[in-house]
């Protein structure tokens, strides 16, 4: 294919494909990270309104979608 030996095609197509899969898996498993933004916004809002905000919405590690 493309005038190249099969091994070359497999390597130069296969390894980038692995990186793409790795990226998608990472994005999927880190979907819970969005909770951090919400928690941070709540923390900032409570600080701005003068409340203590201690432990300002720190979600537990369980809510991390499996990746921290």
């Amino acid at each position, binding site marked *: 294919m*493309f005038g190249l030996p099969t*091994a*070359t095609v497999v390597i130069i197509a296969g390894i980038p494909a692995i990186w*793409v899969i790795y*990226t998608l898996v990472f994005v999927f498993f880190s*979907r819970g*990270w969005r909770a951090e933004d919400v928690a941070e916004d709540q923390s900032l809002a409570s*600080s701005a309104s003068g409340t203590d905000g201690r432990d300002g919405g720190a979600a*537990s590690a369980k*809510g991390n979608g499996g990746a921290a």
Partner: protein
Amino acid sequence: MNIETWFLLIYFAAMAGIGVWTLKVGSKGSEGYLLGGRSLGAAVTALRLQSSSMSGYMFLGAGSLAYTKGYFSLWYAMGDIGGGVLNLSILGRRMRKLSQILGSLTSIEYLEHRYPSKWIRVIAAPVAVFCIFFYVMSQFIAGGRGLEMVTGIPYAWALLIAVGVIVFYTFLGGYLAVAYTDFVQAIIMLIGMLWILIACLQAVGGWTAGNEAVGQINPNLLTMWGPDGIESVQWGVIVGAVLVFSIGYMGWPHVNVSHMAMKRPSVARRASLYATGFNLLFIPAPYIVGIMALILLPTLDNPELAVFAVADTVLPDFAVGIVMAGIMAAIMSTADALLLQSGTIASQDLFQRFVKKDMSDQQSVWVSRFTVLVLAVIGYLVAVNDPPAVAEVVIFSTTVLGAAFVPVYIAAAWWKKANVPGAIASMILGTVSSVVWQLTGLVDVTGVDPMGIGIVCSTLALILVSLATQRSHPVPAHVLKAMKETDKIGAIPPSMLTGQNDSLAGQVPKDARDER
């Protein structure tokens, strides 16, 4: 003045303009100058990360490797494509959060805060500055060579112009200028590189026809085993080639500072998509152009100029100017990041830490700027008098940085037992083993890349020494608390937001710092 030169002048003016634009934010003390106020989103973070790690190597070294070794050279690209996502997924969120809790402004300072001992900085700062200096010098040379070729200006003057523009906007705007120019430059270099690739493939009659023609020269050039065939392949070198630009990124202080400047820890997630997308489009291109140069320019005297020469051959004059701006973008985006990192290390990690502890933010910024200027002058003088090969210098300096720092950065974020003696042993052994391996010619004798040997040595040293010294040198409680907090997904509790720099919110408790 030809049209190519006009395009370059416009491009230089635009970059300098960004420097002036960011001057206001860049001057707001150390945080503004060194981390852009921790305000960067996913796209800027990802493209800044990628463009600052690509460098002039992609246009000189990659083309040269491909021209001399054929498809074997793509092993470097295979690792490189995943470098961004590996770095962001392993270090990104954790380093951003931990650096904020520990109150770290620089990537070397972060190491000292995580491994609380002045010896961490005493060892890490000189190693980083030494490697970064050689790396930045190679970028100056690449910039000078490129300008010389397009404009016809003598090398010494071309080099002076390239260095002058880079220093100008780094000097003015600091990290924010570097980040935004890197972002713009990443887009320009992607457009430029794809343009060369498409024109090059059209010129050789398509990729398949081009490969067939290369096969006529030497069929082994089409294999992944090198021009001498599979019998002479050095598997250790292949492993090293993949490692240098995949996990190697995680040891580069000038790249890791991107994590610390992210607006939020979660930025790392979306940035990984941008990084992988950019890499897939950009990275293989210069290698393929270098291979096709064997057909278009079979008698090239200097293989390092393969990509430049192909651009000059296959593109119309106006396009050469735009493409050259892309090439200069790759060079300048790395050089500015390196220069700023050296200035940061000098001001924050050496001068303020060991010489003048009560230095004000403004004084610190000026020390950083002065260092940028001094390093630029020394780099210029060396580059103009006796310029070494770009690819060799880049691979050597990045190999040493990777071997010295990859395990300590990863363990800093993930391994709670990693302690001061382990980190010191790791950095020393990683540096010494990779330098000795390279300088004594053991690469040729053993067929093992210095990056591979360096990483193995530094990793083993970190694990074994940390485990052996857990009782005598336990990880301090405030560091363990910060790491535990980093494990969690959530805002940093206000109870941890006390310490040395109120503008950064999260700091090392003062009592803990006094104990050091």
